[in-house]
């Protein structure tokens, strides 16, 4: 008899926990005050993003000076 009560109690507790966690998830999903990385960095929305042709921006490059590190072995010398 006690076993049945314990089982019922466990089931009710489990069910309540699951339902509560689900509710909490839905409340978070509806939260419109979420601040994304783009918001913080001032990125624009997809339809406002400027199109760019690679030919227009791939102009003169800059030679990068590579300092030889004596602590890390290079993958290629």
């Amino acid at each position, binding site marked *: 008899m006690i076993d049945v009560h314990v089982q019922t109690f466990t089931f009710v507790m489990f069910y309540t926990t699951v339902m509560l966690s689900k509710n909490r998830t839905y409340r978070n999903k509806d939260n419109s005050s979420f601040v*994304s990385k783009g918001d913080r960095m001032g990125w624009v929305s997809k339809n406002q993003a400027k199109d760019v042709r690679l030919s227009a*921006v*791939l102009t003169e490059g800059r030679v*990068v000076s590579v300092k030889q590190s004596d602590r890390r072995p290079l993958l*290629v010398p």
Partner: protein
Amino acid sequence: MLITKDGYALKFIQTHPVLDNSSHKKSYIFKFFASRIKLHYIVRVEYHDYDFFALKFYAKKDRKSEHKYSNLVNKGDVSNILITCAKVIPALLKEHPKASFGFIGSRSIDRKNKVEGYANNQRFRLYSYHIPQLIGSQTFIHKSYEEASSYTLINRAITDISKYEEDVKNMIVNTYEGVLNVD
């Protein structure tokens, strides 16, 4: 700050032939498992005319996303991932000793579909920081194009480097003209 990570084990999977008439001849596919963040990654290296390779990678979970190269994973471990991707360079140099390599930093797209600018974007800044610490200047000339978020490694074994650079630039522009756009 020096990179102290070693990256993960990289595994070659297969090559994909490209049957159109473009300068893109075939793609080499590699994969690795980023055990720290528990994500599989695919590295796709596109082989072009002039012995030029364009290096791309994405998290396997994003493979069906149209923005797989732009999505933010944001779990850390970027050094290990970039080191592992750079491991394809010595592997491919064995087969193509005069090969050159290039990367274009994709514009990031966040969870609210906000899009990063194309010039000097965060992926490009990471490549510019990591690559000079992994690849030396004895084999390659390192060149960065900040406005296009692009970085190239031009093989010093090439005889006329300035002509080669111009030819490769034209080829890349023809093949990847819209690569910095977000649709």
